[in-house]
């Protein structure tokens, strides 16, 4: 295993271990996602709009909001006790450090999504059926891209006074392409449409991941190094 991959995994493992010891952030994010789903159910007029019509949007807005909360956490924990300075002093290439943070965030957001999806099926009475592997694939494709951008932005946002507000303001415009792609692909999957109908959207999601993961990895050193 190349050294930088090993270092990235070490950083990710550190974050995941810290999270598993307290579990407060993870639990709050999961509860938050469940609450968003519940609120959505009551924010809809059941006589005018069936739950299945609204399902893809509900799922993705919930994912987006929960991810935003989760991402805020990534660097606020590093701010306390100057932990980030310690991390930066360690002989780790910045690219590996970013990759580690990204992996930890993906694990975190992925866990929240994995809990939200069954709740979504339960609350909205959606029949996933054969669409499940497709939905998981679309979720992974869409999540990787915006979590990469969110990771670098959360490193910036913690340096400001209103970090919790700054991150969504910066990140939401960047969430638009993955969200549109994911919602379109999800609604086609739920309707049982053939793969060819969503190939364009999947390509867009993959291209977004490729461009932004690369760019954020390269730009990370400009954010953390004086």
């Amino acid at each position, binding site marked *: 295993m190349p050294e930088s991959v090993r270092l990235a995994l070490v950083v990710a493992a550190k974050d995941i271990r810290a999270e598993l010891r307290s579990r407060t952030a993870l639990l709050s994010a999961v509860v938050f996602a469940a609450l968003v789903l519940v609120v959505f159910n009551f924010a809809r007029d059941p006589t005018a709009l069936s739950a299945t019509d609204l399902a893809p949007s509900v799922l993705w807005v919930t994912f987006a909001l929960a991810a935003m909360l989760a991402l805020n956490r990534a660097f606020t924990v590093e701010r306390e006790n100057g932990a980030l300075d310690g991390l930066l002093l360690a002989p780790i290439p910045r690219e590996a450090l970013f990759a580690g943070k990204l992996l930890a965030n993906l694990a975190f957001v992925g866990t929240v999504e994995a809990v939200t999806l069954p709740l979504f099926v339960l609350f909205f009475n959606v029949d996933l059926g054969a669409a499940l592997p497709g939905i998981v694939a679309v979720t992974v494709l869409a999540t990787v891209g915006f979590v990469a*951008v969110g990771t*670098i*932005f959360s490193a*910036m946002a913690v*340096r*400001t*006074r*209103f970090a919790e507000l*700054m991150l969504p*303001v*910066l990140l*939401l*415009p*960047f969430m*638009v*392409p993955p969200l*549109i*792609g994911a919602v*379109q692909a999800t609604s086609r999957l739920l309707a049982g449409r053939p793969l060819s109908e969503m190939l*364009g*959207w999947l390509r*867009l999601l993959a*291209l*977004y991941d490729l*461009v*932004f993961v690369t*760019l*954020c990895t390269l*730009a990370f050193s*400009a*954010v953390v190094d*004086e």
Partner: protein
Amino acid sequence: MTAGAAARSIVRRGMFLTAAALLGLAAVYLLALQYTPVEARQGLAQKIFYLHVPSAWSALLAFSLVGIVSGLYLWLHDPRLDRFAASSAEVGVAFSAVMLTTGPIWAKPIWGTWWTWDARLTLTLFLFFLFVGYLALRAALQDPAERARFSAVVGILGLLLVPFIHLSVYLFRTLHPQPIVLKPSAPSLPPEMLRTLLVSTLVFTLLYVGLVTMRYGLALAEEEREEAGDAA
């Protein structure tokens, strides 16, 4: 204080250019109202085209330059580039506000709706939000070097976001008028309209240059003030 004089002279130059552009703008109004023919189907509502299209041009010019200059900043670390990017972003937000208000005023009588989620409208709206966020981030950071690095990262990511937003919203059917000047075949406009549009675009470009120059001089003066305050 020779440095303060430099900032003042830049601001003065910017004010001169802006004043020239505003005179030009008055000429554009005259041309639009007197010289160009009334469009057959849209009537007088079409006149807003001479302001809407050039302000969109200036906004996009401003934002593209922010992206390009941000990339250069991460490479060269020249504070002048950062100052320019900040000025250009601010002026770009102002021009896109003009674009986003003149658009609906035209759309209401012509499309019958103030707003629609058309590809181009959505793209420009998100560009507007993106750069409002960019300015908010700048305002929230104290350290000038940090502010410059962070905003350069947002600027360059923003530049790359544009094709993605465009691609993703383009797949929805577009309602916006198709390009009529910058397209492969010859412009399909009466010569009076085309000439007025070109004049107006030049005027808006000059207005962009003037406002950015002014803003740049002010940013320089602000920085010198901060440094003088730190030294004292």
